[in-house]
């Protein structure tokens, strides 16, 4: 089975120069945990609900006056939409993550693949990914 058959394609993005507060509003309003940071069609990073809250506060940043690009994760782990889901699960396990940014072969964002997407088609793959990630209680 290919990643594109089970990935979520409805992906909201955010610009690198918006404030953490604006990103938090988007994360809240769209009921998502992560947003790809995109400028001029190029993927620059990922920002999560944890980055704009726990991480930003821990490093003493003001959410109104700090840009997304200062706290985003720049090393984005990706897979391609036409890859097999077993390969994608292996990438997640290897990097201890439960969400992959999915690209098409033009390196444009095509979607997200999460452990939630894996569970309905394979308990084994989803379970293995969960087991590999560092427990975040």
């Amino acid at each position, binding site marked *: 089975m290919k990643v594109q058959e089970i990935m979520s394609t409805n992906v909201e993005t955010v610009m690198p120069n918006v404030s953490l507060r604006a990103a938090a509003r988007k994360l809240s309003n769209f009921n998502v945990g992560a947003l790809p940071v995109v400028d001029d069609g190029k993927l620059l990073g990922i920002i999560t609900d*944890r980055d704009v809250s726990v991480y930003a506060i821990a490093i003493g940043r003001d959410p109104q006056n700090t840009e997304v690009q200062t706290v985003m994760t720049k090393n984005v782990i990706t897979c391609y939409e036409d890859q097999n889901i077993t390969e994608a699960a292996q990438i997640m396990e290897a990097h201890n993550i439960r969400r992959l940014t999915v690209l098409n072969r033009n390196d444009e964002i095509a979607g997200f693949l999460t452990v939630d997407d894996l569970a309905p088609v394979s308990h084994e793959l989803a379970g293995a990914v969960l087991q590999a*990630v560092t*427990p*975040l*209680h």
Partner: protein
Amino acid sequence: MKVKDLMSTVVEFATPTTSAKDAAHQMHETHVGALPVVDDEKVVGMITDRDICCKVIATGHSAGRTPLDEIMSKDVATCFEDDDIGEATSLMVDKHVRRLVVVNHDNKLVGLLSIDDLARGSHDMASSILEASAQLH
């Protein structure tokens, strides 16, 4: 298998008067995404990194002046440490949650049980929880 065989026993916690800012620092330093909120030795709530994102950062409130009492979830899904993990799984499926507060029979906090912990015991149980919560949205 019992809940206590899989749960995480080292549990950080906060109090209702702890500020969102202090809770964020605590979550950052201890690498956790959720803290039980304890008052007079009883669990009265749960606070997550996402709560701080959506209820403090997104709304423009001051993290230093927002006590957890104002933003925590007060309906906390709880199980006993000697419950069977099958019962705990059913509770997570029914309540659409991914972690449970674990108490002993004196109702004192003894641990947390997350889907990551469950995955170490059963990929099927952990995945069934993901499937149940995926049906929500």
